[in-house]
């Protein structure tokens, strides 16, 4: 049976999800054509490129991009294809270089993308007349912008401005990314592949607080983490705002500083957060008592903030991980997992926080291993013929008439819509954005001639 977009999309709109969308070639083709051709996609954080000449190579699906800081200090994102024969210009995953020299014919580009030289320009091309190298450069990403050091690109030259796209989710992004004026410092990424569809991780981080008590039960059993127990998770709020959605935990009573101390932040960091955060951001923690945990920014960037016990003495250390679900195919995903920490944090905090991250997430983390086992299995099941015969029920939180069983919270200081308890509002929010893309024709693009005088 082939993908029937009209029926499938109508099903998803009412919270019934054709099971095969998690492993289907045609769906993946549409995602490539209509979603990743247009959406703002994270490629790197500026802290991965602290010095001029630093670069990393990142992908948006099959398209490779060089993210580099040029000699003037400007961060640029360039399509990683030599203008001459199409060879990949940067093949190392990261490095430092003032110039990039193509391995095929040695065409050489400055790290701002401008073509600096090619062998035998006069002998082979007759100089500028045959190939006008002046003004030629590696193709810049069609759209590029940064927010709090997060570098995003869109393959759509007419993408909406990034701040407009981020909208109300910026409020929550800042709770992870703006603990001091220094901003986040990224380490990693660890990178590995899982035989799972990319949407599953994105949806999970957007709002699946319901899986935590069961999937991650062992994490509680061994005393690594106090929070995931079902009754505790149920007290958390789920919110969606703009293109993002996330989960929170309810904190024990106390003022702003006491609540952040419970999470494991030292006094000097709490002071900086208190000074930098908006009144609403402080109120979300102090008055409403919620602390952000997992979140997803559509389409495939997720965040997690947890505070496990990192030793037998019961030391609690919070960590932040940023992760990307990079699709490889309909049934394989490359996971990029970064450890992120406030650049101004004390060294001892950074060390403890890194340990906390490694215990929970990353290729050796317990949460990670618990999750992926499920996601691989879902993908396998979704690839069979039976998966075409029924729709998964993703209507948690709705009555049969489609009404929410709980009203939105009023005591929640963040923007968007928040509800306490379990629900699949966030996953449906994510899927509705996914649908919007799949229902819309791909963006218009144009073809360029290189180095030709026309």
């Amino acid at each position, binding site marked *: 049976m082939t993908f029937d977009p009209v029926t499938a999309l109508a099903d998803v709109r009412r919270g019934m999800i054709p099971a095969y969308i998690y492993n289907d070639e045609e769906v993946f083709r549409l995602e490539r054509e209509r979603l990743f051709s247009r959406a703002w996609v994270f490629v790197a954080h500026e802290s991965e490129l602290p010095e001029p000449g630093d670069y990393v190579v990142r992908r948006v699906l099959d398209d490779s991009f060089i993210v580099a800081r040029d000699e003037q200090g400007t961060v640029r994102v360039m399509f990683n294809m030599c203008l001459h024969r199409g060879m990949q210009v940067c093949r190392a995953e990261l490095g430092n270089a003032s110039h990039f*020299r193509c391995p095929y014919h040695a065409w050489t580009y*400055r790290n701002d993308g401008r073509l600096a030289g090619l062998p035998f320009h006069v002998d082979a091309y007759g100089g500028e007349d045959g190939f006008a190298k002046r003004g030629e450069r590696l193709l810049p990403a069609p759209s590029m912008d940064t927010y709090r050091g997060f570098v995003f690109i869109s393959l759509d030259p007419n993408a909406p401005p990034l701040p407009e796209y981020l909208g109300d989710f910026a409020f929550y992004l800042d709770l992870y990314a703006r603990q001091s004026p220094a901003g986040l410092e990224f380490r990693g990424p660890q990178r590995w592949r899982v035989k799972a569809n990319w949407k599953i991780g994105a949806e999970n981080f957007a709002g699946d607080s319901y899986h935590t008590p069961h999937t991650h039960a062992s994490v509680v059993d061994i005393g690594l983490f106090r929070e995931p127990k079902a009754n505790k998770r149920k007290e958390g709020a789920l919110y969606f705002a703009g293109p993002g959605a996330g989960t929170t935990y309810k904190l024990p009573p106390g003022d702003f500083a006491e609540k952040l101390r419970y999470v494991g932040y030292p006094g000097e960091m709490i002071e900086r957060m208190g000074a930098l955060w908006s009144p609403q951001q402080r109120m979300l923690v102090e008055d409403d008592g919620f602390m952000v945990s997992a979140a997803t920014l559509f389409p495939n960037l997720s965040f997690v903030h947890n505070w496990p016990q990192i030793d037998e003495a019961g030391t609690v250390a919070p960590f932040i991980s940023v992760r990307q679900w990079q699709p490889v195919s309909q049934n394989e995903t490359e996971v990029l997992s970064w450890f992120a920490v406030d650049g101004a944090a004390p060294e001892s905090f950074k060390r403890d926080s890194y340990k906390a991250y490694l215990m929970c997430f990353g290729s050796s983390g317990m949460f990670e291993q618990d999750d992926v086992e499920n996601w691989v299995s879902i993908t396998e099941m979704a690839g069979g013929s039976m998966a075409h015969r029924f729709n998964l029920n993703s209507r948690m939180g709705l009555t049969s008439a489609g009404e929410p069983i709980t009203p939105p919270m009023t005591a929640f200081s963040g923007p968007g819509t928040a509800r306490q308890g379990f629900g699949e509002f966030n996953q449906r929010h994510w899927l509705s954005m996914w649908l919007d893309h799949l229902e819309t024709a791909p963006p218009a693009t144009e073809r360029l001639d290189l180095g030709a005088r026309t």
Partner: protein
Amino acid sequence: MILANEYAEVEVDLVRTRNGMRLRIAAPRTGREILLCPLELEALTWQEHEAFSALLATPHGPEH
């Protein structure tokens, strides 16, 4: 000392002469090397990276 990135590898050494010193930069892959005196090295400090782009206009080195 060896300096390398994905495009090039060079060996950098201090060479002591009877009465002074030079910095030797050698590229094992091309077999070329240059011995730079302190004045030449100082002159490098007032170059812009554009100057090196000009040198790399012929990416294999001299074409004659």
